[in-house]
């Protein structure tokens, strides 16, 4: 996680933060009043904060979405009223890159599922950096199916670079596992609310994001491929990732404009990790409002609206094919 643009910028601010708190401590014990110096430094701090984080480029947002301190799925899930984790695909393995289970949200039972990256190196290794294996997607499908059976809303959290691209994932039919998630979410007769909380990478993210309501954190990203992957595919040059990031339209604003994202959850200046409790609370409130609204719809209405929504997405125009007119 070194090389994260946002983390690097925060280093400068950290220095300033340290000085402010030192001054504050000194001010409390020493007779000389340094309140005005402190205030000045704080103003400067806010100014720099605005300069540095006031507007973020798509590439900066990519780094924000990957910030090691950014709240993960479990930060949201553990803030729910209650959570009981369910494990496994019933066949092969319990994939720690996916967490899911029953939860209560203001008294309402839901099934919640999220991609889970690690919050440190050790956990990242265990959770494969939040990149699910086929077993993880089969757990997703199973839990979504349980939700459907018990008529419980599904609340997902999307946070993955993408599905695991390793040998055993190919051997265990990663394509099939993701395709069957898409199938399950397309047919689930219950409300589905998906929230992109960090990085939403490719089909591996979409597998948890076919939903009646898609929320996205302000500085999260959601893209057809990672910028590095896109640059490698198109230009055989992963170093052009920044260029790819700006072209891919992967910000919450872009995706809201396309109709892919229904609601953007604002983040504090500097990113969600600067006030985790507030962001988590705000996000859960927004999710709950969606769940409540969707719960008023019949399964048939939900399925019909979900179908229409995805059926509409895309840009095309009608065009008479020239050669075929030749007859």
């Amino acid at each position, binding site marked *: 996680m070194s090389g994260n643009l946002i983390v690097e910028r925060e280093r400068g601010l950290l220095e300033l933060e340290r000085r402010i708190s030192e001054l504050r401590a000194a001010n409390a014990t020493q007779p000389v009043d340094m309140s005005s110096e402190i205030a000045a430094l704080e103003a400067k701090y806010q100014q720099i904060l605005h300069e540095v984080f006031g507007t973020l480029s798509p590439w900066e947002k990519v780094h924000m979405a990957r910030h090691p301190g950014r709240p993960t799925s479990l930060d949201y899930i553990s803030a729910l009223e209650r959570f009981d984790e369910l494990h496994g695909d019933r066949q092969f393995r319990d994939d720690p890159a996916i967490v899911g289970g029953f939860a209560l949200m203001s008294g309402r039972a839901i099934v919640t599922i999220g991609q889970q990256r690690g919050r440190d190196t050790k956990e990242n290794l265990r959770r494969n950096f939040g990149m699910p294996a086929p077993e993880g997607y089969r757990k997703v499908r199973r839990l979504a199916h349980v939700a459907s059976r018990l008529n419980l809303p599904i609340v997902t959290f999307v946070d993955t670079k993408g599905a695991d691209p390793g*040998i055993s994932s190919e051997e265990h039919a990663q394509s099939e596992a993701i*395709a069957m998630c898409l199938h399950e979410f397309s047919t689930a007769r219950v409300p589905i609310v998906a929230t992109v909380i960090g990085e939403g990478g490719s089909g591996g993210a*979409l597998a948890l994001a076919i939903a009646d309501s898609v929320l996205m954190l302000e500085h999260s990203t959601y893209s057809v491929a990672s910028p590095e992957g896109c640059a490698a595919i198109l230009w055989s040059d992963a170093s052009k990732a920044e260029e*790819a990031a700006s072209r891919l339209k992967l910000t919450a604003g872009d995706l809201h404009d396309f109709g892919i994202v229904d609601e953007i959850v604002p983040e504090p200046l500097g990113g969600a990790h600067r006030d985790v409790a507030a962001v988590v609370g705000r996000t859960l409130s927004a999710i709950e409002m969606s769940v409540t609204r969707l719960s008023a719809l019949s399964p048939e209405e939900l399925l019909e609206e979900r*179908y229409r929504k995805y059926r509409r997405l895309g840009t095309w125009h009608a065009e*008479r094919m020239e050669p075929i007119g030749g007859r």
Partner: protein
Amino acid sequence: MMQMPDWLRARRGKDAEGRDAALWTKCPKCGEVLYRRDLAANAFVCPRCAHHFRMSAFDRISSIVDGDFAEIGADIAPGDPLGWSDKKSYPAKLRGDREKSGLSEAVVCGFGQIGGFDVALAVMDFHFRGGTMGTVVGERIALLLEEARKRKVPCIVFTASGGARMEEGMLALMQMAKTTAAVTRFTEDGNFFMTVLTDPTTGGVSASFAFQADVIVAESRAMIGFAGRRVIEQTIRQKLPDQFQTAEFLLEKGAIDMVVDRHALKDTLVRLLEYARGGVLRA
């Protein structure tokens, strides 16, 4: 409905001549130099090593469909939602591929008969943007499935794809959701859905409709996978064995129903359609 030869001539336009200009082709597998007309006569299978060359959608349709073919969705043409431009603009790339391939997009959809069975058919073509799925591919396939659902005919999709199309960004990814939903509606009504995975089938196409079929057939030696070979090699930092992600490898790993040599493909599809219909109708 047009007769096949007319339809082919009409849709291929001037390209057909252009391509015929290349009289000789070298087999990428065994190195044999092949006279292009002989190769075409052998269903684009190398007579020496049985390497299956990638087929154009036109050649595929004429090799599979009995006679007539009624294209649908041909008037659905790509937009440029991201205003994409790198070395070339996206519209310029599309124009280039259109001229080179004679295709209007990476899939041709329509209705025809195979061995006397009415079918809905979609054929992807790797020669147009690497068979990538953008809005038009998603839209045409969804349209085909919706129409097939109304007509209650089986649907066969020939896949050939490098995945989602970068230049349409997230709208390309959303075609996975669109096609999946259309497949789901189609199959939930009790209709038969079959895919034929041809070389290569990866990414967003393999992880959506390709693997949602009742029966999944793959052509011999086709490369099929979720992640691309290069991505995996970079991840694991070592070379992958040759047979990794081949159709034969997937058969052993249980991911697909059968591997079929191209020469036997049409007969196989007819037999499968016959089973799905309930058997042989006898007098």
